């Protein structure tokens, strides 16, 4: 009997082309190896949250990831960090990016302390 190689599931971003994902490989690593852009690459260790996605269909196993970036309520509806999920079936995902914070804004706030200087 020829040895049957483990099943290579695929990952699809929205309706894009499927990318093969070897067993034990994270969704983020498979997409990067397949040359697929779209999911930002950060710490690759479940901490920074930039590779946040929503799994629209399929099953996956989940490694440790920051609860600040993926609170339990988000995880319950299929939100995860792509660096910390491995497919257990073909997956279709949507890219979300880092969870918005209560202090948004690209421009850094500039605090001049002018008030204190005028008072003194």
């Amino acid at each position: 009997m020829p040895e049957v190689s483990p099943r290579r599931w695929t990952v699809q971003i929205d309706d894009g082309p499927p990318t093969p994902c070897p067993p034990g490989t994270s969704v983020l690593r498979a997409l990067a190896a397949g040359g697929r852009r779209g999911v930002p690459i950060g710490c690759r260790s479940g901490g920074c949250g930039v590779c946040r996605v929503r799994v629209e269909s399929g099953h996956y196993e989940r490694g440790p990831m920051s609860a600040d970036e993926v609170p339990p309520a988000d995880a319950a509806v299929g939100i995860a960090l792509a660096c910390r999920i491995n497919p257990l079936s073909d997956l279709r995902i949507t890219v979300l990016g880092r969870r918005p914070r209560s202090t948004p804004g690209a421009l850094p706030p500039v605090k001049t302390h002018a008030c204190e200087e005028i008072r003194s």
Partner: protein
Amino acid sequence: MSINGVLRTGEVAIRVLDIDAARTHYGERVGLIETLREADGTTYYKAWDEYDLYSVILRPADSPGLDHVGFKVLDDATLDDVVAKLEGLGIATTALAADTLPKSGRRAQFTLPSGHTAHLFAEKEQCGNGMPLRNPGTIPPPGTIRGMRATRLDHCLLGGADLEGNAKVFIDAFGWRVTEKVIDSGSGIDIVVFYSGSNKPHDVAFVRNPEQGRFHHASFFLNSVEDIYHAGDLIGYYDIPVEVGPTRHGATRGATIYFFDPSGNRNEVFTDGYIYYPDRPMLVWDTDHLGEAAFAQDRQVPESFLTVTT
């Protein structure tokens, strides 16, 4: 004097998602030495050439990032003096009794204007570097230096919004000096500020970030550029997520590699750089020259370096 009463960044306390993976990373791979372990898993490490019992604390938690940064001061009188200066700046401090952290004396805790929790402490048990104090020789017992051969915790880079408030703490209360700055080419506001309380090009640095209290990286000193390359070989061998390097910084002129621990906290290995004296003029980089300020060889800054923190 070129060494200040506030001696150095002597302690960094980091949250980790998986303590076993973190112990493998910091112990076996970075090469730190475990010195204490608590029932909840919190683990204490020193680098081989540090005398203090610990400089790195790893605490299991559900999110990574910085618990606190600790600054070691010369003695109790300096601790009281710096606390008085902080209170004079309107920064409230809280006294922590001796042994609040293990084998450490009384402390003062306060919040930096950048949102980070900071400690000041004068006393911590010393266990030495494996070499006797009398006729010490030149190396510790073989096997002590391992992994990436980290010799000490060198500095950390932290992100927050109020860099002007931090300047008051580090210059007015600590007596540290700004060695270099990166300023916005248009507005001239500070983007990155490097502080030294010693002969090092930096003991701590802050980057402007709209979110308060963010952790950019903790850096470990290696003895040579050859050791940096050796660390790079280990990073490849262990498949550690690497971000930049080996390359050289423009700012500080240090040789560097950036990589991530298994919880996404950024680490650096660092060597070289110039010797700093208080009469050395401050250097300024414009953001128009950010590439060469950050990574002087390819002059490219990966987007993640500017956006990824824990």
